[in-house]
């Protein structure tokens, strides 16, 4: 499905991706983790074509994606910061994105799901951060694409919406979709992820399931296991 070969990206003199290889063939939820600056967002943005890699190849459904744009028809993306043109109303924004995609959308269902009806006629600059994030989620999930990319989906959400989001992600998974997630909330990741891809210094440093991670690091607690990945001891023990 996604095949990434030898991906390199530098910003100025700072190497962000350093020969990254990644294959994602299966359906399910894949969490991309790593410390700040490890290249998570750059990786995601390279798949989306927002960052132009210096070297390397990205294939999506057996098609090269670099410098193309039509393939994005099959990706749903949730950006990290939800910021929209302030003068548009919520419904106008949803209509606009639908218009741009020219695809069937299930916006009504999701508006009900996130209880956004009272806000549809409000301008976007009048909304709170959490409500904006909900609009962001509606925009992302309404198209039913086989690949979903979520960059920090939990930010700004209240606990109830967070539960809703978890349900929604599970539903999408059961439909047989591939979902790529980055998040800093570890118990969220532990609960939903089928596979963990841990990035460090622009390379994949660990790739496996949550239980594999726990066994490898000899830790019972997921957060500690992640912290352990970064400790030097482990770096010497386990090199890939």
């Amino acid at each position, binding site marked *: 499905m996604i095949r990434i070969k030898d991906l390199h990206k530098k*910003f100025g003199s700072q190497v962000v991706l350093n020969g990254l290889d990644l294959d994602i063939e299966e359906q399910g939820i894949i969490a991309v983790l790593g410390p700040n600056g490890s290249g998570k967002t750059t990786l995601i*943005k390279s798949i*989306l*074509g*927002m*960052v*132009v890699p210096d070297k390397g190849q990205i294939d999506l459904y057996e098609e090269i994606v670099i*410098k193309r*744009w*039509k*393939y*994005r*028809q099959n*990706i749903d*993306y949730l*950006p990290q*910061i*939800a*910021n*929209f*043109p302030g*003068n*548009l109303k919520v419904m*106008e924004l949803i209509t*606009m*994105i639908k*218009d*741009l*995609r020219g695809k069937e959308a299930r916006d009504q269902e999701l508006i009900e799901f996130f209880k956004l009806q009272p806000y549809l006629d409000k301008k976007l600059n009048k909304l709170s951060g959490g409500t904006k994030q909900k609009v962001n989620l509606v*925009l992302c999930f309404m198209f039913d694409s086989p690949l979903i990319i979520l960059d920090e989906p939990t930010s700004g959400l209240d606990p109830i919406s967070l539960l809703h989001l978890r349900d929604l992600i599970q539903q999408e998974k059961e439909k047989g979709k591939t979902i790529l997630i980055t998040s800093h909330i570890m118990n969220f990741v532990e609960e939903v992820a089928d596979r963990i891809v841990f990035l460090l210094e622009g390379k994949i440093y660990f790739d496996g399931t949550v239980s594999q991670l726990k066994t490898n690091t000899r830790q019972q607690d997921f957060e500690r296991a992640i912290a352990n990945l970064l400790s030097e001891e482990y770096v010497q023990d386990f090199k890939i």
Partner: protein
Amino acid sequence: MYKILKYSFFDLTRSSWSYVYFFFYLLLGITLLFLNNDLSTAVITLMNVIIMIVPLIGTIFGVMYYYNSREFTELLLAQPVKRSSIFLGQYFGVAISLSLSLILGLGIPFVAYGLFKSAVIWDFVMLLITGLFLTLIFSALAFNIALSHENKIKGFGYAILLWLFLAVIYDGLFLLSLVYFQDYPLDKFSLIATMFNPIDLSRILILLKLDISALLSYTGAVFKEFFGTPLGAVTSMGMLILWVVFPLLRMRQVIRKKDF
């Protein structure tokens, strides 16, 4: 591209700034006409204002719009839309809404005053055409600056500097060089130097249209000789078009390689 243009335009027509700009011209037009009671002096005064204000507003609006819609641009970039369509759409959205403010703001008082019956209609049309070109040129330059600078403050700084350079400093340097090299024949030099500054070019075009080039003495005669001919008219229009086309081409080059 048209979809992006439509929504950018839609977004901007709701912004209070477009109305402030519109009312500024409306007020200016009304004041000049009804206090002055003379269409042709009104046109000349307007020219002086337009030549300074239009580039300034185009630059500031362009930079501001680009930086304000950055996150939204990211959302669009993740949609199945071509990169160049996104930025050209936004650019034309800004340029067209500014042009509309200009045309409506000045047009309404002039039409109300009875422009269609007067002989200066073509002077007025010329004024609007150069105003349109200046809007297109300076918003394109602003987009270029903003695209090349991630830092807002830097972007704004360079944009203002560019305006200051073309609107004020360029003329100063031009004048200095004329004084300094006054022993040499300077007609060709001044013609070419004028071509390379869209603000000067617009000013000359309007002045010649108003037929007051006699005020410009010998240089005026040289200019009239050149710009008054069909060749001159075509060249100067061509130059203004190039001033729009080149920044747009550079914009396309930059966005092909840019990371967001």
